[in-house]
């Protein structure tokens, strides 16, 4: 196969690569790397091998890299090829994916860190930040002309980088605005879940669930992907309970205050958003899913973040969005259980252990019955303070 159009993808920014594909009768690769001889041959053979893998036997490929990792170079190469071919079809298959385990629906989700999916620079160290949930963003953080290139990059990042215990999410574009193309590339790289922006109607969730089911089968993904609808409009807030119940895959409702505030014409403050937040928490909890609060946009203001996170927690939220890695610790601190909660959880778990030993089915602690969801909550609290096993 030979590309017939000249095309390029990527940038000359730090940590990125600019890859240009030109039509040619045979395969030639030229590499310009900051590292000189240290990685010149390595990159050339990486690119050749990938081209052969895709059945490209004629093209001139130029790679200029500014500290790009191997998977970034490959993502840029694939995006350039797709642009040249005018189709992403060739790349709609599963890549070999780093070892990754599934997550439970009720796992700990105190922080969800947004990282733009288009820029190599911030993604370069995304595996080291350690939030509970990492959201690779293909929607608001990516400019329209780079939407395609970003989904190639996220596909490779997910397949390659080891994120440890972090749960991995991709915020796709709305399904009718590129979201389906996003899914066709990223589901094979086995994220744990998909964030659905601007959720206003249970039908959107159902459509996403159907698409996921077929892609999971096609790409042999060994777990069903979770859905996190992002409620960021007055319509969404009103329909929150229906959205939460639309599919078994929904694990968490997330609140997006920026768009909501704009649409209702409010000025952002704790009071003006209190009703929407309360409504969202009640809808989520009534439907058996978690609720995650909106981001706190001022990165410099640690006190403001701590205060808002604590209030969100008191309201019943399970976590909060963050836009900078240094916000993670503050949010985790705010969502840490209190000493009384830990003491209660310890007692409840001990009571359950004792009941099991004695063969009693009914567990009581401090005069109240401990059923399974309550016991799970107790275990989760202990996991947060490093006791017992993780919630997963």
């Amino acid at each position, binding site marked *: 196969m030979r590309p017939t159009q000249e095309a390029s993808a990527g940038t000359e920014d*730090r940590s990125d690569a600019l890859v240009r594909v030109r039509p040619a009768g045979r395969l030639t690769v030229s590499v310009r790397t900051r*590292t000189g001889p240290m990685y010149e041959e390595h990159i050339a053979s990486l690119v050749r091998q990938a081209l052969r893998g895709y059945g490209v036997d004629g093209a001139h490929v130029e790679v200029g890299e*500014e500290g790009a990792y191997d998977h970034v170079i490959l993502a840029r190469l694939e995006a350039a090829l797709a642009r040249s071919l005018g189709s992403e079809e060739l790349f709609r298959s599963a890549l070999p994916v780093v070892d990754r385990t599934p997550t439970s629906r009720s796992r700990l989700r105190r922080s969800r860190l947004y990282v733009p999916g288009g820029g190599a620079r911030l993604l370069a160290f995304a595996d080291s930040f350690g939030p509970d949930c990492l959201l690779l963003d293909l929607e608001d953080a990516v400019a329209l002309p780079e939407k395609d290139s970003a989904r190639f990059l996220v596909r490779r990042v997910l397949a390659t980088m080891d994120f440890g215990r972090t749960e991995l999410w991709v915020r796709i574009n709305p399904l009718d605005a590129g979201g389906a193309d996003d899914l066709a590339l990223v589901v094979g790289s086995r994220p744990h879940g998909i964030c659905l922006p601007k959720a206003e109607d249970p039908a959107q969730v159902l459509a996403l669930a159907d698409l996921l089911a077929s892609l999971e089968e096609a790409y042999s993904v060994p777990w069903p992907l979770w859905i996190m609808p992002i409620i960021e409009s007055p319509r969404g807030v009103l329909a929150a309970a229906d959205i939460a119940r639309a599919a078994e895959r929904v694990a968490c409702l997330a609140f997006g205050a920026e768009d909501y505030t704009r649409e209702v014409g409010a000025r952002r403050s704790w009071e003006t958003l209190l009703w929407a937040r309360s409504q969202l928490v009640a809808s989520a909890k009534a439907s058996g899913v978690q609720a995650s609060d909106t981001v706190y946009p001022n990165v410099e203001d640690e006190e403001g973040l701590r205060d808002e996170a604590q209030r969100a927690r008191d309201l019943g939220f399970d976590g909060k969005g963050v836009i900078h890695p240094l916000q993670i610790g503050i949010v985790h601190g705010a969502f840490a259980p209190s000493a009384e909660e830990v003491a209660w959880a310890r007692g409840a778990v001990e009571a359950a252990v004792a009941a099991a030993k004695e063969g009693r089915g009914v567990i009581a602690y401090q005069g109240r019955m401990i059923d399974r969801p309550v016991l799970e909550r107790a275990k989760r609290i202990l996991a947060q303070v490093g006791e017992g096993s993780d919630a997963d």
Partner: protein
Amino acid sequence: MPTNALGREIPEEVAGRTLRPYQGAFVTIPAGRRAGGPLKTIRPGADKVASSLEEAIRRSGLRDGMTISFHHSFRDGDRLVLPVVDACARLGIGDLRLFATALFPCHEPLVRYIQEGVLTRIEGSLNGPIGAFVSQGGKLKEPPILRSHGGRWRAVACGEVGIDVAFIAASEADPYGNANGINGPHACGPISFSVIDSWCADHVVVVTDNLVPYPAVPPTIEQGYVDQVVVVDQVGDPAGIVTGTLRVTRSPTQLKIADLAVRAVEAAGLVRNGMGFQAGAGGISLAAQEILARRMKATGVRAAFAIGGTTRYLVAMLNEGLVGTILDGQAFDEEAIVSHRTNPRHQPMTPGFYADYNSLGCATYLLDFAFLGGTEVDLEFNVNVNTHSDGQLLHGIGGHQDVASGAGVTVITLPTLRGRVPMIRDQVTTVTTPGEVIDLVVTERGIAVNPRRADLAADLRRAGLPVRTLAEMKEEAERLVGAGKKPLFGDEIVGVIQWRDGTVIDVVRKVEGWQ
């Protein structure tokens, strides 16, 4: 070829100079007496002011083959080294040994004088283009010798390096030779690097653009050691003191490393009243210092002292009462210079005070902890600050060895990857500072604890900090980029790295090719 205690091959001699192999951080026992300049006298009424640099050079008796010295307190804003070397060239003096404390990118024009034979030997820190130039080899009669701040002081004080003429840039001086760097329109901060030069050189020339009536105070350089005073248009540009690295980083990764570093010393119980600490001027170290300041404010902890180089961030800690005294050898920005001038708790000090191996007291030995950087670290915790992984000699040692060997806990902060080049190696390209004096290596992936410090590992684990091995972190980084080729080194030695006691911890060899 003989190897030193770290297994590095060190030739017995290079260019006629005997090299003593490094044996351990604190093994050498010094012998002999301190060196000093020749005895001289002066009569009342004598005039020390020379009309020009050329006249001063002529009167100094500088001849072919001699050694000239300088300080680097103006850093990249230095305006003295080039004019002096140029004047020497015009006077037909050549074959000189340049013994500046450090050279910076502004000194790139020296390349011409090296090619023309005006300069044939260099000793001192080589930052940037001159380092890159000598890395090519074959240009100098002898490979440059690099020393730490304390190492340079020691070398002069014990007579290892004899200085024929010391040129000392001063932002304020009087006609009798008293001089400092903290007053005047082009103040640069302390010029205490040159104190030992003034004591030991055969001839001392103070160069200023701000001649004031007697006495110039404080007299960092004293009249009794000064032969001549020269007035020039501008002795240095303070704007050149601030270079790119002297700002707190905004990079999330670097901030994360800084945050982990501070949490590590907190977990070790070192952040407490009365402590002493040092933070380098790199982006991560500065960020760590800022985070430390915030924690100290929150918990009410006060440090007894901090060691500079000083930036505005440390000055702020002094002014807020978080730090009792700054002991400082070098100003890194305008705020630090002003603080030197106005705050008596901002105390200038010489490298002899904080870092000399042959001394009965080093301020660095009283540090509870220090944050330092590096270009590479290896599985034995050895740190490289001189060369890059491609073998190019691009940085000086600064106070790295002195601080690392002194501090109770030395924390090296660096990312696992710079661009796509891994920073954790099986073996560093060049050893600057031995793993023996390194306690923690903090990267964005976690904290590696030197096996010598099982106590620290326990503290860190108890605090829930991510304790990892260097090997694990190295492997994770290399999974993303591959291991890369290594340079192949020839026999030619293009740089000698001294340990602070004068032994040779490593040599830099010329790159001949790649694997």
